[in-house]
């Protein structure tokens, strides 16, 4: 039985906004605002959503690259949500990150060998020759020619630079890797190379991924389960096939319908396409009620007042929308205790996963 390697509960990451002469805090950007999910060992959880919805912040917060505002994170059995940074040092090898822009994340003045070997010198007591050997082994693993070990990042193409970033992330034998838009900067023909590499490495090394991307077709390819974010919250979470064939949340439906089909026959049929109007509101000032209520084609009166709870609608298929909540469906009246956000904390129903078991049913691979 696979167990969750990563458990995230009610994660919040708010960035303070300061203003005025005294730099007083006048508000906060609620970049991540109460997010819960599990990732099983060996699984890939896709995290999708429009730019600015909080995907990167979520990924970085899970790795504790930030001091989080609230919630808990458990990785490999250890709760790290409130650990101070110096206590996290021994956890760092376990959890790694691959970044979007291989150019910006590689030090241009270091050789490829030094870049890949850096975590080894920082976290291990390997000798020079052991390090060299490990670097060469890593280069083999990601398909980089060993002969290039003394070259500099600018001498490589975008796809090869991403391989360097992946090799460095693998150096310390991590269990969990957050891949933040690892293919967004690459050409179509190169994207497939990198995605296949990530999949091969996962099979070979038993890695667990949080795969962040705005590319819904690529996420359908790589992910076992998918979480959809909108304005700091996960609005839907489901096994991959269920999410793509039966999206429940109106935002997921709109997002999927906006993806152009690489087939003119299908493109012609997409006449019932849902085109969302307007832009995403600012996370510093989210609307009252449901975060999606300013753009939702199915918005109801209740949506402007009450934040929908994140409920398990079908086994393993979670959604935060009043349409699926028997308590509010189509009603004009508020629920019993109808003020904002109170729902989220209400214990009664199958709500925001209180224990790992319920949230990972379905497509456990």
């Amino acid at each position: 039985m696979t167990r969750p390697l990563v458990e995230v509960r009610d994660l919040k990451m708010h960035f303070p906004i300061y203003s005025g002469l005294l730099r007083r805090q006048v508000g906060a950007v609620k970049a991540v605002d109460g997010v819960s999910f599990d990732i099983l060992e060996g699984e890939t959880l896709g995290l999708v959503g429009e730019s600015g919805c909080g995907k990167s912040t979520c990924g970085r917060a899970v790795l504790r690259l930030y001091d989080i505002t609230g919630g808990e994170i458990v990785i490999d059995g250890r709760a790290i949500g409130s650990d101070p940074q110096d206590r996290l040092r021994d956890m760092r090898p376990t959890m790694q990150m691959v970044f979007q822009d291989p150019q910006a994340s590689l030090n241009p003045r270091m050789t490829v060998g030094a870049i890949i070997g850096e975590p080894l010198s920082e976290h291990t007591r390997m000798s020079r020759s052991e390090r060299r050997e490990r670097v060469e082994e890593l280069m083999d693993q990601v398909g980089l020619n060993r002969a290039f070990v003394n070259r500099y990042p600018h001498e490589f193409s975008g796809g090869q630079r991403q391989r360097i970033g992946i090799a460095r992330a693998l150096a310390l034998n991590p269990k969990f890797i957050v891949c933040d838009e690892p293919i967004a900067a690459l050409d179509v023909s190169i994207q497939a190379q990198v995605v296949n590499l990530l999949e091969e490495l996962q099979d070979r090394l038993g890695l667990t991924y949080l795969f962040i991307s705005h590319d819904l077709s690529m996420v359908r390819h790589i992910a076992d389960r998918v979480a959809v974010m909108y304005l700091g919250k996960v609005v839907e979470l489901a096994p991959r096939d269920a999410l793509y064939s039966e999206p429940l949340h109106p935002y997921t439906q709109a997002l999927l319908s906006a993806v152009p089909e690489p087939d003119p026959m299908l493109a012609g049929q997409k006449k019932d396409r849902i085109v969302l109007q307007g832009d995403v509101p600012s996370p510093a000032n989210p609307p009252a009620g449901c975060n999606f209520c300013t753009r939702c084609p199915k918005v109801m009166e209740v949506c402007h007042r009450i934040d929908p709870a994140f409920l398990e609608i079908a086994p393993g298929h979670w959604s935060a929308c009043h349409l699926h909540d028997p308590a509010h469906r189509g009603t004009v009246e508020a629920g019993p205790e109808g003020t904002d956000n109170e729902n989220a904390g209400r214990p009664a129903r199958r709500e925001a996963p209180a224990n790992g078991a319920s949230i990972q049913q379905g497509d456990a691979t």
Partner: protein
Amino acid sequence: MPQGDTGSEAQNVLDVRDLHTVFRTRSGEVHAVNSVNFSVKPGELLGVVGESGSGKSVTMMSLIGLLPSPPAEVRSGEVLLDGEDLLKASPARLRDVRGGEIGFIFQDPMTSLNPVFDVGFQIMEPIRRHMGLNKRQARDRAIELLDLVGIPGAAGRLGDYPHQFSGGMRQRVMIAIALACDPKVLIADEPTTALDVTIQAQILEIIEDLRQKLGMAIVWITHDLGVVAGIADRVLVMYGGQIVEQAPVHPLFNDPRHPYTRALLKTVPSVSGARAAKLQVIAGQPPILGAAPSACPFRDRCPLVFDRCHQQNPPREIVAPGHDAACFHPSARTGREVAEASA
């Protein structure tokens, strides 16, 4: 061999023939555009696809003198706009054409919108210059244009500066500016690449709508095959500074003939239909364009490569009505099944 046009050439609003553009850099020449031929008819939407560095932008910028020279040098060719060769036009005439008869939209509106002028000024300026309207008339037209591209409360936003618009709204402003003087040709270079899919869907909807209303020719550059499948009438595929395949949109997707196009279509996953266990890859890297091509630019990555491909650069040849491909392999002439059998 320039071909790939159905119907008479007289109908073409834009006709590009044998275009060659070279950059002279310190580390040598870059042959960015090699013998490119294409044309567009009024009301037609021509999609241009190809990976980055394949020469899409340089081709379009060469048409209306947008490349800095040096380092760029348009070595040869003709660019006929309604029969007039723009490569021979005076700088003054070219300034007239830009933003007048040919409208441009770029990927990043922030680099082409001027941050220190309000949006109203930036739309009205070309209208007054190219169309000779007075201030009042230009203002009315600006409001009409912003309305047309779906900017709510258009009249109230003329005084706003570019940074006061979201990414999607800025791209709408760019479209409004490009359309300001009723261009005959609109060239859009990756106009939605930097936008989210939901915003892209809004822009694509506007373009579809405008096409019906305005009947101009559109050249739409993108690396997103999905976008092309949805909006294009005809498609050019570029690789290594050349057009390697040209076809109406349905045959291009259903019966691609060039090995590169075939491979490209297989590498892109979709949000519907069957899900492949493994993505197809095109191994290797695109070519370095250090010299004029003397062999097939795809030879290092082509599964069908044979002797001849190393010795000659294949010309574009007609493989089906309105459909041409630049490939020596017999399967380019016979279609899909045969290709798979021999691959």
